C-alpha cells in the first residue's frame, strides 16, 4: 500500500471519508459535526462530500443522539454518533449501556446494533475536570460493547473503519492530545480488527502495557530504558474490550515483569483488570508484582503544574519499570 505521513486526526478523517464512500448505510450525526466538521476537525469535509442527508448537526441532546443511532442500527444502518468529549458520557449512559449494548442479548439475538460512537478523551490540555477524563474502564465493564482506543495515526484510521464495519456497538475513543501526532498511514481503505493488540516494540526484561496516548510515553520510555540496558516490550491493546490478553500474557511469561500504564485514575481502572488477568494466567512466571502507573485518585486538575503531575509520562514509566526490574 502507498503510505505517507498523516496526523492522527487526518488519518481518522480519511478513514471516515473512505468508509462513507464505500458504504452508503454509514451516516454521521452529532453536535457541530457537519457545518463545522467537529470541534476537533475530526469530520472535516464530510458534509461537503456526502451531503446533509448523511452528515447532520444535532441539537445538544446526547440521549437522543445515541438513541437515534441505536434505533437506526437496529434497523440495519451503520450510524456514527459523535459524543464530542468523553466526559459527556454521563448524559447518554443509559442509551449506551442499557440499550445499545444489551439489546442483542436481552432480545435473544433477534437484533444486531452496528452502531459506532466516536468521542475524545484524555488530559493534558488544561481542560479541567469535566473535559479531560479517561473513562474506558466503565465501558470495558459493559457486556455487548466494544471499546477502541487508537494510539497512532495508523490505528486512528484502521480502528474507526474496523469499528464501523463491526456488527456490534463500538465506541472509539480518540485522544485529544494526539490529534496532531504524525505517523505513517496507507492511502487505501483498511481496517484493524477489534481485539488484536499491537506489539509496539519487542523486549525481554519488562512488559509495558500502555493505553491510548500512554503508548507514546511508553515507547519513549522503552527507548530510554534501552539506553540504560533494560529491554522493554511495549504492548498497545488497541481495544480494551475485547482485550487481547493472550498477547499480554505471552509477553509476561517471557519478561516475567509487567507494568501497566494509563491516564485514568488507577483505582478501578482498566489496569486493574489487566493486572488481575496477568497474575491469574502467569502467576508462576512473575518475578515481581504486576504494577500499575496511572492517575492519582482525584478529578483532573486545571493548573498545568498539577495536570503534569497527574498524568503519567515517560520519565515516570522509566522509574517504575526500573523498580520492577531491580526488585528481582
Amino acid at each position, binding site marked *: 500500500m502507498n503510505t505517507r505521513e498523516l496526523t492522527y486526526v487526518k488519518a481518522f478523517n480519511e478513514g471516515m471519508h473512505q468508509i462513507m464512500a464505500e458504504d452508503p448505510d454509514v*451516516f454521521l450525526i452529532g453536535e457541530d459535526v457537519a457545518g463545522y466538521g467537529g470541534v476537533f476537525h475530526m469530520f472535516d469535509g464530510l458534509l461537503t462530500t456526502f451531503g446533509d442527508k448523511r452528515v447532520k448537526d444535532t*441539537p445538544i441532546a446526547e440521549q437522543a443522539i445515541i438513541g437515534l443511532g441505536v*434505533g437506526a442500527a437496529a434497523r440495519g*444502518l451503520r*450510524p456514527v454518533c459523535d459524543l464530542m468529549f468523553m466526559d459527556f458520557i454521563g448524559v447518554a449512559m443509559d442509551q449506551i449501556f442499557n*440499550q445499545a449494548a444489551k439489546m442483542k442479548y*436481552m432480545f435473544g*439475538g*433477534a437484533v444486531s446494533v452496528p452502531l459506532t460512537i466516536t468521542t475524545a478523551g484524555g488530559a493534558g490540555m488544561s481542560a479541567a475536570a469535566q473535559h479531560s477524563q479517561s473513562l474506558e474502564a466503565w465501558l470495558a465493564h459493559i457486556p455487548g460493547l466494544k471499546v477502541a482506543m487508537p494510539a497512532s495515526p495508523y490505528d486512528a484510521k484502521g480502528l474507526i473503519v474496523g469499528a464501523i464495519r463491526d456488527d*456490534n456497538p463500538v465506541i472509539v475513543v480518540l485522544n485529544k492530545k494526539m490529534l496532531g501526532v504524525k505517523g505513517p498511514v496507507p492511502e487505501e481503505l483498511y481496517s484493524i480488527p477489534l481485539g488484536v493488540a499491537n506489539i509496539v516494540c519487542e523486549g525481554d526484561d519488562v512488559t509495558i502495557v500502555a493505553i491510548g496516548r500512554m503508548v507514546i510515553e511508553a515507547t519513549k520510555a522503552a527507548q530510554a530504558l534501552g539506553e540504560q540496558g533494560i529491554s522493554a516490550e511495549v504492548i498497545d491493546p488497541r481495544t480494551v474490550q475485547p482485550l487481547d490478553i493472550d498477547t499480554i500474557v505471552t509477553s509476561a511469561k517471557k519478561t516475567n515483569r509487567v507494568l501497566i500504564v494509563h491516564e485514568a485514575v488507577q483505582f478501578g481502572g482498566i489496569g486493574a483488570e489487566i493486572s488481575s488477568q496477568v497474575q491469574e494466567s502467569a502467576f508462576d512466571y512473575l518475578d515481581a508484582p504486576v504494577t500499575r502507573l496511572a492517575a492519582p485518585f482525584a478529578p483532573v486538575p486545571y493548573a498545568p503544574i498539577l495536570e503534569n503531575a497527574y498524568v503519567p509520562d515517560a520519565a515516570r514509566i522509566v522509574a517504575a519499570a526500573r523498580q520492577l526490574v531491580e526488585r528481582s
Partner: protein
Amino acid sequence: MTETLAPNVTYGPPEGYAAGVTRELVLDLHRRMVRIRMFEESAGKLVESGDMPGFLHLYVGQEAVAAGVMSVLDDVDQITSTHRGHGHAIAKGAEFRPMFAELYGKTTGYCKGRGGSMHIVDMNRGMLGANAIVGGGIPIAIGAAFAAQYRGDGSVAASFFGDGATNIGAFHESVNMAAVWDLPVLFICENNGYAEFTAQGNHMRLDDIAERANSYGIPGVVVDGMDALAVRAVAKVAVDRAKRGEGPTLIEAKTYRYFDHQGIKGMRIPYRDPAEVEAWKERDAIRLLEVIGTERGLATPEDFAAILAQTETDIADAIEFARSSPDPDPADILDDVYTV
C-alpha cells in the same frame, strides 16, 4: 393548571371519525383488544400463582390505544414500547406462543428466555422491543424513523410511553430532534393518570400533556384513549402527516389501567379512589366498541363471543406450548452477547 390550549394543540379526532366504519374494522379492533386483555389476565394469574417467574406490568384498561394505533400501522412500521409492553406487542401482531414461552423463560420465547416480560421483541412485526427504562424506547423510535426517512421506504415509527415518562429527559430530547428533522414518527403518550403511584397532578402542572408538543413546534392531539376508533382516527392523521414528510405528532390518549402498577393483586396502599377506578371501567374500551359495533349493526354479540372463544383456545394452546418448551441451557449463557 392551564386554561387555554397551546397553539397547534387540538382535542379529539377529526369530526365524523366514526363514519364509514366497517365490520372488518370493528372485529379487527375488537380482536386486538380482547387478545391483549385475555393474555394479560392469564399471565397475571400465572405469575401470582407462582407458576411463571418475574413480574408483570399489566396493560389491561388501555387496550384501545394499542389497538387503535396499530390498526393504522403495517409490519414494516416500527414501534418501541415500555415496561407495560404486552399490549403493544400483541396489537402489533406478536403471537401468544413465543410470548408465553418468553414469560416462562423458555428457548422458544421471543428472546429465548433471556428477556422476559419487559423485553418482548418481534422484529418481523416491527416490534422493536419493550423497555424497562422509562423513556428508554423513545430515542430508539426516532432512530427507526430516521432509518425510514434515510431509506425513503415510506414507513413510519411510533413510540409508546406513559404520562410519567414525559417528565424524563429522553422524551424531551427525542421529540425535539424528531421535530427538527421532520422524522416520520408518532409519539403516543398513554396518559393513565399515574406514574406508578404518583398522580399526574403531583408530577406535572399540566392537564393536557399534548400541550408539550408546542415546545417542539409540532402538532399535539388529545384523544379519548378508551375509544379505539378515535385513537385510530388521530393516529391515521399523524401517520399521513409523517408519510408526507411533515414530521412527528404528539398524541395524548387519556386512558386508565385497571390493575395495580404491577401485578393483578390489590394495591398495597390505596393511592386511587375505588370510585375513580369504577368510573373508568364504566367506559371500558372493549365494551364501548361492542356497543358501537352492535348499534350500527356491523357485528353481533355472537361475533364478539367468537373472538373471545378463539382467544381462549389460543391462550390455552400457547400456555401448553410454553410449558412444554425446553429450558435454556446454561452452557449457552454467553451466546448473543456479541454478533460474531
